[in-house]
């Protein structure tokens, strides 16, 4: 019998930078981003796809970094909170979260921001219920969610007013 493959070489883009790495095939994407690349802004809350803390953007769509293996991200374009922060694309959301205190411990926050940004990209003027629905895959133990909904709604209004 052949020895099982333990490691694989992957090539991907992460936050705009080319990355080439040899990874154990069993390592999940969020562990790879955090441990191998030092992108510790993505968090791990459950490792079974429920809490949403590990949310990252893979080829433009938000995904759970704990449910993907790093090798599945081969040839993908990944964006993490670090990239979204540096590019300025979520600056309005970050500012609204800050003003409205839409975070307490901040552990859920990077994922909340990426999820909210994905919602606003699809629907510039969501209702409060739609915002709540969209965020309902992201667990936050601290805030009770209302401030997060307020912050997203505030940004949506601004986006709407400009459009």
């Amino acid at each position, binding site marked *: 019998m052949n020895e099982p493959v333990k490691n694989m070489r992957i090539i991907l883009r992460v936050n705009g930078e080319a990355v080439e790495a040899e990874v*154990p095939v*069993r*390592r999940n994407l969020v562990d790879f981003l*955090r441990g191998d690349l030092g*992108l*510790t*802004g*993505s*968090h*791990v*809350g*459950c*490792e*079974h*796809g*429920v*809490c949403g*803390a590990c949310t990252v953007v893979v080829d433009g769509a938000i995904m759970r970094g704990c449910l993907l293996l790093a090798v599945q991200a081969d040839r993908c374009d990944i964006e*993490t*909170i*670090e990239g*979204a*922060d540096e590019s300025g694309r979520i600056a309005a959301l*970050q500012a609204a*979260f*800050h*003003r*409205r*205190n839409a*975070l*307490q*411990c*901040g*552990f*859920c*926050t*990077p994922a909340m*921001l990426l999820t909210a940004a994905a919602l606003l990209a699809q629907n510039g003027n969501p209702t*409060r*219920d739609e*915002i*709540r*629905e969209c*965020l*309902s*895959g*992201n*667990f*936050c*133990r*601290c*805030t*009770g*969610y*209302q*401030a*997060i*909904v307020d912050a997203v709604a505030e940004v949506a209004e601004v986006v709407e007013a400009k459009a």
Partner: protein
Amino acid sequence: MKFQAPIGLSLPRDRAKRLLAGRGQFVDDIQLPRMLHLAFVRSPYPHARIAVIDAVEAAAMPGVVRIMTGADLAGVVSSWRGTHGLFPDMKAPEQTALATDTARWQGEAVVAVAARSRAEAEDATEQVIVDWEELPVLGDAQTALGDAAPSIHAELGGNLAFFAEIEQGDVETAFGDAHVVVERRFRFNRHTGVSLEPRGLIADYDPASHRLTVHQSHQTPHQQQDLYARLLNIPEQNVRVICPDVGGAFGLKHHLYADEMTAIAASKLLGRPVKYIADRLESFLGDIHCRDHTVTARMAFSAEGDILAIDIDDLFHAGAYSQYPRSSVAEGNQIIRLCGIPYRHEHYRAKVRMAYLNKSPLGHIRSVGHPIACAVTEHLVDLGAKRLGLDPIAVRRRAYLRDEDCPIVSPGGIALERPSFHGCLDRALERIDIDAFRAEQARLRERGVHRGIGFATFVDLTAIGPEYYGEGGQHISAQETCLLRLEASGGIRCYTGATDQGQGIDTGIQQVVAGIVGVPMDDVKVNSGDSELCPVGGGSWGSRGAALAGEAALRAGRKLRLNILNIAGVLLQKSANSLDIRGGSVVDAVSGATHMALSEVAEVGHFKPYTIPDGVAADLTVIGRYASRNRMFLPANGLHVAILDVDTDTGLVEFRRYLVVHDCGRILNPMLVDEQVRGGVVQGIGGALYEEFIYDDDGYLRNGTLADYLVPMAAEMPDIEVEHLQTPTTTSELGAKGVGEAGTTGAMGAVLNAVNDALSPFEFNLSEFPLTPPRILRTLGKI
């Protein structure tokens, strides 16, 4: 007294900016050179003897550095007992870092593997062979206290850990003479804090200097420093506990955990950094749980709705061990002290029993005992009003303690200063038109929509004073210290003994310092969460930050301000009294004309001290300390009102409105206080409707993942209206009381009463938490 801005303003938090940029630093984000990772072999049985451990193959696995059993750690780390000196009759068993002969709960750590990576450590745990001999399982308190039950700790000679009874007045006669007596049995099932970031730490022992540094997701760095020093026999001045960003704590991170102690002992044994981060299953199995109480309660009423007597019987358990260092008595002890507290009543009896049994340890999670006391009391009031044919609001108004009754010591022994029960109710009824609600409720019922309203009044015991743990013999600081240092450039560094897991106490303290000294917010930088750098304090627990650390900051601020003005007075040849500090400058106190910048004062203080005459107090590093006296607690009070619909076909509950009126005295930052309340309410709703550990008859946990332990998510949660009264405490200058648990305290009671009100046409009476759809449908007789 009036305090100047920014005290009292809704300002956002500095720390939030970092977290929003993904630049937080949580403990699992830290990597140290030569760091090892720890994974555990945990008992798969709720109760089993550990016969033989064979780790030969596991030790040869790739990356494995050391495999440790209880015997290996026996000489490295001492054992402990979760006793409490205020309760001398309480019994607590000896606990060790790793279980040695017997595992007493499913998930108890038995073997630890240190390896190069977590994955390799976990691989090796699977190859450790343990020969278990299963033992009989005690899964509930009633059975554990039965005559036939074997002692799970032979050394204690029985499973009764604690018994207490309070009695005042003539309870039996009062019940005998009552017009109406209501009685109910309540079940509060088990849940926990579920911080999104699990527990975790990196222990870094350096044998060359005999120094231990622990980076830990924790609420109480100074408490841990003391424990690690004593249990590992390291001089305390060589132990440093650093709490980086902490991803939620809620009480579950202010204890000593056996698995965490194992990781620290492993670092001492190996002389290398060791990281242990609990995964979600380990969190559910091993984090401190709360509730799991059965309360049988009676309340006696006069025909007019006066409360004549209350009788409470609480049965609960500590799990297999009493939590350390605080012990597990408090939840039951709070219940017997708090039931009935908002109301005038003379005859009171309450007893509590705590057992040991084969489940994970149970203890302090946000709002210890309070939600239970509140739900029991407030549901009995509703039941009594219903039996008497009276409006439950009218009964509350009649029976609440009035201003003229206070100050008072309650039958449960709690000293109340000036509670504002009537004011809170008045404010709630300004917001909610109760007549309109009742009319709408009747209209909706005709259409088959079942809407209910529930009120829950409570007292929250905040800011525990030093007497509680001081007299208990525990090394837990209930005083607070604040150190301020004016830098040569005029900015202020602030170090506090409180810690911030997101509540925003750092910002509250920053506001106090800025307001008292007279400088802009940006000129003050607050540092916390480091047992070496920060002056001694208790960290964060029990709604204490603003009341205690805020007062210490006020005192430090006053000293610094005075010394700055002393120096300025010398430089300006004016009396310090004629000067003030505003906007970061020394000004004339009367005209407000600017004299000099703080940096000019600081420059003299730092570099030209010879220009200041002897005897002028001119220290630019000052300490303020606050320890309350002669009070165990600082009671705050509040009221929750829930309005919700119950679907009688599905048993689902949908919120329509949720209102909290709270009185925490002076508010440092209204926005942050409101958000504390909202987060607390949602956590309380979790316990009311969703969260519950489910065990089978053999004592095995059935729901150890976030997929089947339900937590509140955004879609089901209501917007929460928050109102405040501000009755400052007279025991401190700042006048702040605590608020961190107020949201959680009233939620179970309000939801319970609202659900029962919604379904009152069905003679519905449910008093088992959480109020899940199956329980609601069963009570309706639909399933």
